[in-house]
């Protein structure tokens, strides 16, 4: 049985851990509220943008002159995978889920003989994938220290992807991130952003043909980069909200576990203390009887 002093030290250390986890939980809860508002108010724009684009994508034939952002390069050889994770850990399986999904995707693509390139956003995803896929990482982006994500944060990422596409450095671009479902649930999502997935072509001919003003190319030239930035922005927001949600529930259960542990240790401590007292009493009594 452990000594009383060792038990006391142990209890104190678990108590300080509990204080930390419960503070982290509060912080995550308040950040979550803000992030959740932001993601929910940003969704309509992204949804409408996606709807408009997929209609357009179905209209525009994959001719060589069509913009690459819309129809791709016509090949399917080089894949750019963009895993979006948090910059910090202690959020349960949040980062590992994205890491695992990316790894599965990479394995599948490489088994099919494709070339993959990685552009991780967030430090944790980069660290996770660096060991096995370090040579595939072309660049990494960290958004650490942002209090509030702005649309402007997504622009450099979008520009970089557009630049790579123009330079013919990849054919297909896919985002892997956690979609925010509710406070306690995030769904790991794989979303292809280049080329734009065409709207269900199965539904047949009766679709509206859009006129464009000014010409279609001009509209597309400014619509497509905007769409890319929007999809990335939304994914970043989803991921940020998901991160705080995941951290909150992880820290909540950590706090609860610490509480359980303290209870068990205190019980143990009290029992030990009582046993010591009893033992001393027995010693005194039997000493007195012996006299």
């Amino acid at each position: 049985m452990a000594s009383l002093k060792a038990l006391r030290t142990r209890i104190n250390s678990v108590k300080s851990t509990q204080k930390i986890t419960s503070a982290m939980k509060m912080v995550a809860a308040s950040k979550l509220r803000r992030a959740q508002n932001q993601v929910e108010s940003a969704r309509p724009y992204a949804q409408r943008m996606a709807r408009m684009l997929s209609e357009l994508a179905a209209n525009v034939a994959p001719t060589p002159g069509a913009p690459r952002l819309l129809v791709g390069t016509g090949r399917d050889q080089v894949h750019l995978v963009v895993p979006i994770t948090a910059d910090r850990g202690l959020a349960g399986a949040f980062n590992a889920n994205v890491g695992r999904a990316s790894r599965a995707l990479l394995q599948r693509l490489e088994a099919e003989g494709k070339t993959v390139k990685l552009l991780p956003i967030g430090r944790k995803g980069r660290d996770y994938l660096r060991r096995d896929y370090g040579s595939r990482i072309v660049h990494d982006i960290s958004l650490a220290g942002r209090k509030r994500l702005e649309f402007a944060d997504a622009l450099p990422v979008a520009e970089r992807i557009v630049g790579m596409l123009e330079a013919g450095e990849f054919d297909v671009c896919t985002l892997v991130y956690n979609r925010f479902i509710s406070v306690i649930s995030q769904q790991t999502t794989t979303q292809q952003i280049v080329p734009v997935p065409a709207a269900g072509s199965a539904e047949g001919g009766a679709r509206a043909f859009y006129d464009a003003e000014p010409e279609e190319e001009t509209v597309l030239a400014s619509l497509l980069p905007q769409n890319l930035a929007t999809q990335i922005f939304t994914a970043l927001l989803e991921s940020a909200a998901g991160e705080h949600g995941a951290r909150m529930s992880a820290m909540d259960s950590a706090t609860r576990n610490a509480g359980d542990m303290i209870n068990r240790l205190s019980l143990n401590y009290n029992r030990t203390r009582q046993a010591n007292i009893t033992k001393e009493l027995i010693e005194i009594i039997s000493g007195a009887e012996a006299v």
Partner: protein
Amino acid sequence: MTTALEIVSPEKLLLSRPVEMVVIPAFEGEMGVLPGHAPMIVLLRGGTIRLYENGQVTGEFFVGGGFAEVTPERCTVLATEAIPLAEVSRGEGERRLAAAEHAWEHVDKDDVAARDAALARLQSAHAMIEVAGVA
């Protein structure tokens, strides 16, 4: 007969309600959208969106640019930025104009895309000042 108007900016959904007519600042001039309009995708410049109900203007928004999707049933405005007209400030417009002019001087005039983007910024800032002057 009404058309379902929605004004959305990247940050939020600003407005969603049926109106009789909406006038949007299309790239090549103001454009009125009535119910049953032919499907179109329109590039917007900086300017004012006006909502009409019962022949009256019932709402005005400043947009900094963006796109609009028009179908017979609805009109969806995807603005880079949309502000109710009453909240547009002249000072902000002038600050942006100064920034846009600065950007314009440094832009590579041979890069068509960059030049157009800088021009659009200038136009949007001018529109903002004009709108604020009226309000």
